[in-house]
Structure formats: C-alpha cells, structure tokens
C-alpha cells in the first residue's frame, strides 16, 4: 500500500519551492511544516501522569484518538500518579524497556539524559514554528547542548485570593512586591480571613511557595557551578520575612499536605493561598451554590516580586521524553509533534482551562487565557518561573533535594520558630551537600 505521506508531499513542495529559486521560501516551508514518517506497523505505549483536572485527560485522549485515526498507529495511553511515575521512568530508562514515551515531570529526564532519544529536530521545528521556547522550557528540555525532552508546559502556580476579602483589607489590586504582600496578609489576618500556605511535606504546594520565598530574596540552593549556597544572608532575609508572614497564617499549616489548602480555600476558611488553577476549576465546575459563589469572588495573581527584582515563581514542569530503546522513534516523534500542533495543543489547554501553561510563546494568544480574565495570570507561568535547582543545573542532585524537602523543612522549621534561622540554614546546607557532591 502506498500512502502519500505529508512528509513526501512537503518534500515535493519544498523541492518545487527550491526549483523556483527561492531558498528563503524553502526554509520557511521547513519552518512551518515537518512530519516524521512512522515506521510500518508502529505501536506506541505512552505513560503519563494522572490528571489534576479531568478536562486534561479527556482532551489528551481525544487528541490521541485523532492521531490514531489519522495515522493508523496504535497508541495506548496509561496514567499513573506523577509521584509513582518517577521511579518507574528511571527504571525503564536503565533497564531499557518499557513505554516508548513518558510524560515526565521536573528534573527527571536529566537523571538519565544518555538514555533519551535526541529530539533536536522536533524541538527546533516547534521552536521555529510556535516559539521561541521560554528559557525555563529550554532549561528543562536541553542537556549538554542536546534536546533530550520536549517541554510540554508547566502546571502554573498563582496566588489564589478572595477579592472581597482583599478589598476589606485595604487593597484594590493584588500587591506586586513582597512588602505590600506582607501588609495584605497582615490585613487579612486582622479581619479574621487569614491566608494559609502549606508547610507540611506537600510535594507540590509547599515546594512551590517555599522556593519562591527563598528565590525572591536572592537565596538559592546552589550557585551556577552547582556549589551549595543556601547558607547565605539572602536566605536569612527570606526566612526572617517568612517568620512575619507565618504569623498571619491560619493555625495548622505545618501539617498541611497538598489537598489541605484546596479544602480550606473552598470552604472559605482561608482567603489567600498559592495553588494551580485546580481550586478555581473545582469551584467553577461545581454544582454547589456556595462553591459557585467562591468561584465568583476568587481571583488569581502572579507571585509578588521580592527584593531580587525579577519574578521567582516555582512550578511543576512537564516534559515528554522518548527512550532510545523504542523501536519506533519516528512514530513517537510524530505523535509528539501532532500533540504540540495548534489544533491539538490549544484544544488541550482549553479543556484543562489552562492547567498547563505553554512552553512556547505562540500559545500566549490561546483564547483560554483571555476568555475568562481569571485565567490570565497563569498565562506567563513558564515565562516567570525558575527551574528547580536554580541557579545550578538540573539532575539527580536537584531532584533529590526537592524530594527530600530540604527547602520546605528549612522554611517550616525556621518560620515556625522551632529552630533558629541560622541552624535551619546550616542544617539545610549540610543535607544539600550530600546530594551535590
């Protein structure tokens, strides 16, 4: 059976362009369209993280079905809790068998870069067509000058707040710097509508805001040469600020795990927290009138900027990797290309009401960011975020430090007053050195 593939058609088109004596045109044609010719009889196994919002999974599968219909390639998509998926991916990489494609999180691809297929052609193409890629996306996608992972986007984080409560506390708009932010929190606390930020071992929420806090004041786990630099006067300033901030929190945040702030916000116990768009998603899609009321009153804002002068938010980052052991590298690349094209990617973002923030600038204009103004603050999450392990490189050390809650523990024990700022920093430094050695 002969099929006229898109690629062959394009080759012909490009050839036609070239013969017209217009090399520029040919390059544009390449920049706009690219297609990989799947291996005959290709079958793909995709393992992805379990959805955080239902719309994401539904649309991802719908897009996959579209791909199946179009190419006849058999694709199976399995989902697992993202934290369980991480060790599995590492084992697959090293055993050399398992899913062809894994939707992985954070620093994972950088723990086994040499087991991953070089997907430079795909990423360059996407970067040209929809890009450029944001710096954070490049940090997560490239290793040693090579594209090892295709950035998929970030689970953006924003401040979630109740507008009416903020106004009562004397703020017309959400504060943009840390000083004003502290004042807002103090005002909220005084009015009996306190803020609450997770300080337990909450992988997502606690890591997100604690890293923001440290970075906002210029503190960082390691410097550019991966030397541990957490024990610094910048970190100390951040922790001192954190102490004042902690005074305004609702009681109990030391025990908070990932779901706690969602529950507390949706029941009206707190009026400010940091979270992805999942709280709003739950409130907006709920049938409960109380929840709908909260959806109407709540809004999002980007994290305030600290003395360091630039945005320092932290977010869960998603990438797609193809393992070298796959028998169908072209089919796999074609699948990823297909999922990233406008028709699919925009629909996917829309279905998850912007849970995943694009890694490519083009998708800033996705209507999902503007059709509900409450989505808009999430629009630039990838642009505003710093990669994990900042300012060093991504790898096993940065992943280990995060999983071991070194920053979260340091913040929790010092802001709650359990340990002095100095001791908290030196203990974090000691633990971090174990990973960065």
């Amino acid at each position, binding site marked *: 059976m002969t099929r006229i593939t898109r690629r062959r058609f394009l080759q012909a088109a490009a050839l036609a362009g070239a013969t017209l004596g217009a090399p520029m045109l040919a390059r544009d044609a390449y920049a706009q369209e690219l297609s990989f010719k799947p291996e005959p009889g290709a079958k793909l196994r995709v393992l992805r993280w379990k959805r955080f919002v239902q719309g994401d999974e539904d649309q991802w599968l719908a897009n996959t079905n579209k791909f199946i219909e179009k190419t006849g390639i058999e694709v199976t998509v399995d989902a697992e809790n993202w*934290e369980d998926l991480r*060790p599995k991916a590492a084992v697959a990489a090293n055993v050399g068998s398992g899913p062809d494609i894994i939707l992985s999180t954070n620093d994972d691809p950088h723990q086994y870069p040499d087991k991953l297929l070089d997907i430079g052609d795909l990423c360059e193409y996407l970067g040209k067509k929809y890009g450029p890629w944001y710096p954070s996306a490049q940090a997560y996608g490239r290793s040693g000058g090579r594209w090892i992972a295709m950035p998929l986007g970030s689970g953006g984080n924003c401040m979630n707040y109740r507008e009416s409560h903020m106004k009562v506390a004397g703020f017309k708009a959400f504060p943009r710097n840390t000083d004003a932010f502290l004042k807002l929190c103090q005002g909220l606390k005084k009015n009996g509508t306190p803020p609450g930020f997770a300080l337990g071992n909450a992988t997502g929420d606690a890591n997100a805001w604690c890293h923001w806090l440290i970075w906002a004041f210029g503190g960082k786990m390691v410097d550019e040469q991966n030397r541990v630099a957490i024990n610094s006067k910048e970190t100390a300033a951040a922790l001192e600020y954190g102490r004042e901030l902690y005074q305004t929190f609702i009681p109990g945040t030391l025990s*908070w795990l990932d779901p706690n702030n969602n529950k507390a916000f949706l029941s009206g116990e707190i009026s400010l927290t940091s979270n992805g768009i999942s709280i709003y998603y739950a409130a907006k899609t709920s049938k409960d009138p109380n929840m709908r009321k909260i959806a109407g009153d709540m809004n999002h804002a980007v994290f305030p900027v600290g003395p360091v002068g630039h945005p320092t938010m932290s977010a869960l980052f998603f990438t797609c990797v193809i393992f070298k052991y796959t028998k169908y590298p072209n089919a796999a690349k074609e699948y990823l290309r297909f999922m990233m094209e406008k028709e699919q990617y925009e629909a996917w973002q829309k279905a998850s009401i912007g849970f995943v923030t694009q890694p490519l600038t083009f998708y800033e204009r996705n209507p999902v960011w503007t059709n509900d103004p409450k989505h808009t603050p999430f629009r630039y999450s990838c642009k505003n975020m710093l990669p994990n392990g900042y300012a060093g490189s991504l790898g096993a050390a940065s992943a280990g430090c995060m999983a071991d809650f070194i920053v979260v523990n340091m913040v929790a024990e010092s802001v709650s007053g359990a340990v002095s700022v100095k001791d908290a920093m030196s203990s974090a430094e000691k633990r971090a050195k174990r990973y960065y050695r």
Partner: protein
Amino acid sequence: MNNALSRFFDNRNVLGLLFMVPAVALLVVFLTYPLGLGVWLGFTDTKIGRAGGWIGIENYAFLVTDRIFTLSVFNTFVYTVVASVVKFVLGLWLALLLNKHIPFKSFVRAIVLLPFIVPTVLSAIAFWWIYDAQFSIVSWMLMKLGIIDQYINFLGEPNLARMSTIIANVWRGVPFVAICLLAGLQTIPPSMYEAASIDGASPWQQFWHVTLPMLSPIIAVVMTFSVLFTFTDFQLIWVLTRGGPINATHLMATLSFQRAIPGGALGEGAAIATAMIPFLLAAILFSYFGLQRRRWQQGGSDK
C-alpha cells in the same frame, strides 16, 4: 549401580535434605536474596535506575550525623513503645471482658475486629479528616461544647502529632491483640480457676498467678507481631503527615521510602531500612527468650 542409587535415596538424611529443597529454595529466592540485596545496597551509592559502587559504611557514617535520621529513630522508638504498651493493656482488658459471658457474645466479638479489617489506608484517611486542622470533628465538637476556643492543631504540633498518630495506630492494632489474647484465654482449662478458688485465691490473685502465666506464650507471640507491625508502620504516617510537621513523625520506614524512591537515593534508603533490622531482631529475641521462659509460665520468678 542401581542398587547404590536406591540405597542413596533410601538414606534418611539424603531424603530429608531432598524434601527440604523446595522450602529452602522459596526462602532463599523470596526472603534471603531480597534481604541480602537490601543490606548490600546499603553499602553502595546506588541511585534509582543507576547501579552504584561500593562505598563501605559511608551511608551509615552520614546517617549517624544526620539530624533527621536520628530524629526518625527517636520517633520510631516512641511510636513503637507507647503504641505497643497501650495496645497490650487495652487488648488484654478487652480480651478479659470478651471472655466473660456477655449478651450477643459472638456478634460483639465480630464487631471488635472491624478496625483491623478496614484497609489501613482507608482508616488513615478517616483519621486524616478527624485530625484536620480546619475540619476536625473532634475540634468542632469541643468548640460547640465550649471546652476549647481554637481548633486543636492535631498534626501541626510535634508532640501532638506524635500522639495523634499513635492513637490512630492503637485504634487499628487493639483488635488484633484482643482477639489473639481471647483465643489464648479460652485455652486455659476452667479447672485451674476452680482449683484456685477452692484455695481461696481472689480474682486478682487468679489473674496474676493463673491467667497471666498461662497466657504468656501467646502474649509473647502476639506482642512480637504487634511490635514488628508498629515498628515498620508506614501507610498510616504516609497518609496522615508524610513525616511532618518538620519531620516530627517521620519513622525509619517512611524516611527510608522518602529518600530511596522519590528522592532516588536507593543506597541511603536501603541503609536506613537495614538499620531497622537490629532493633527488630532485638524485639524478637526479647520476646522469645524472655517471655517464653518456662519458669515464668509456671508462675515462678527468675532467680
């Protein structure tokens, strides 16, 4: 030749060894090998999915200086000792009550087992709500009754968090102890109590000199299991606190998991897990050589 072969197989020693092979093979493959591998991993710097090299006792040398590890050892001890003692006392008490003639005896006995039957994760989630900082039913009730004026920070304050997790563990563990001890109580011949009462022994003396000594072999077994379960508890902590607040409830098992699987430091995690073995062995040896002494069982005391 044939004769020699059949004689060989007729040899009782050979035959005995031969019959033991399947059991030994199972033990080696499923117990000794994984255990040995775990111990070996503890001496390496293996990361998840990446083979490591031998680093001797470096992991242990680090752990001894690691504040969080030493805290987890302390937590594990507090957790195990307090929970085991409470479980034993409550379990024995419950068993003695259930051993009396009460209405609907078998129904009540079945009910008692319920906490043990519910999957740990489910009961842990129930406790997670009970202890919630904002939605705790206990806090809510006490507030309504006017006893407290602020929600109790069950899982947010280190000692309170330890106590809360221990209570959840006790709730789950008591039925097991109670039912096993009840079974033990029923094996004590009534004639012994009759003899004791003829001799004029008070109920307390009967308990002290008949029940307890006769029960001690069962107690030894039950408490060994109970201590082992408690020492290696994982699910309850993982659901309730993930080791928080600020690692105040991290047990050796949860810390081992956190470092080994999400953290990727398989070698160090294995070292933490291996560090549990001596404690577990000590617990087993204590119950076997201590509680199972014949003299104790016969109501005497050590000389």
